[in-house]
């Protein structure tokens, strides 16, 4: 397992690409996505649950004026504070169900299912 921060310059492009790929993959084959984007907007993670395949990367993109974090409840991953339009990515290389919160606003919760 590893985590990485994507550079500021590439973050929007990467996030947009991920979003496009995610959409292009179709609703019934979401589990086959090689990547997925979770938008952080209006103090919510959207989608609140994403299903991805092993080896896929999830990118969180903050669209709020308020910073948010992405913190795994098991300590597996933890982003720094993401300011507006900043992203955080994590590659999931094992199947399982992963819960995360924003540590600044812990009422914000989300889940990644890796199949």
């Amino acid at each position, binding site marked *: 397992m590893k985590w990485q921060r994507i550079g500021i310059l590439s973050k929007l492009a990467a996030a947009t690409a991920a979003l496009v790929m995610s959409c292009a993959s179709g609703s019934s084959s979401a589990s086959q996505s090689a990547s997925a984007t979770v938008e952080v907007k*209006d*103090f919510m993670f959207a989608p609140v649950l994403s299903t991805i395949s092993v080896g896929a990367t999830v990118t969180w993109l903050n669209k*709020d*004026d*308020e*910073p948010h*974090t992405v*913190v795994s*409840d098991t300590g597996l991953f*933890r*982003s*720094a*504070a993401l*300011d*507006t339009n900043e992203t955080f990515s994590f590659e999931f290389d094992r199947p399982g169900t992963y*819960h995360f*919160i924003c*540590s*600044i*606003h*812990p*009422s914000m*919760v989300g889940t990644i299912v890796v199949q």
Partner: protein
Amino acid sequence: MSNQPFSTSRRNALKCMAFGGAGTVFLLGGGVLTPVDLARAADYKRENAPLGKPLFVQISDTHIGFNKDANPDVNGTLTRTIDLVNAMPELPPLTIHTGDITHLSKPAEFDTAQQLLSRLRTTEMHTVPGEHDTTDPTVTEYFSRFGKPSGNKGYYSFDHAGVHFVALINVLQFKAGGLGTLGADQLAWVAADLKARSSSTPIVVFAHMPLWTIYEPWGWGTGDADQLVEPLRRFGSVTLLNGHIHQIVQKVEGNMTFHTARSTAYPQPAAGEGTGPGPLKVSATDLPKMLGITRVMVTPHRHSLALHDATIARADGETT
């Protein structure tokens, strides 16, 4: 009924608006702590009011690094707040910062904050971290600068002028969907720390997140604060202070006064209004009024605190 130690003239009100800073100064008189609006205190002639000796000033939620529309100049508003403190005719010896010193826990933000705060002419500064100060992956930026008094635990106590101060941390153990947490270790430490104090000792407890539940859906509270309150009940004067919600909310329970502080950076919506507790955008004219022009009237009764906070806009409309 309340007494009003300061004249609330339109001129004063406008003067307060001009400052646009935030802070509350606490006066100690006869063992009773009395919060007084900072802008008024700076303008306050000592011989005119029998309130006591200034003990400390509370500054909160400076959010250095924030640069959005809600306030593109947080350094400027903090600077104005500091000027206001430094202009007080009698300086309080202590400053208490109740957290969210920075916006994103970045080293440069902490450096700027320290540089700005070093202009305070008060002799001591005590801090607790906010959740915005502990988002760096290793949670070391805050502690490397401010962790010494607590041995990097985040909680500690000290005494000043016969008042016992307890600094607490409630921003590290968030649970999904939950409120802030003090945790068993810290709660046990507080109980032991208080045990040695006589019930007549005035107690000041401060933390970043509210020490009572103001609005659970936004996490405005501390889940295990009830266990903190228990050992405090026997004391004759307990003041519990926090920041976090960028507006004033107060509760009085027995001898305990819970009081939140305004931010020096930007306002937040009232509980439950809008999508979440983010920066509230207001007009440039309205911003100073939202940044902590707190109007506090103090009852003359020595053993009860009754505070009245209002925006300057409201105070300005009054003709007392």
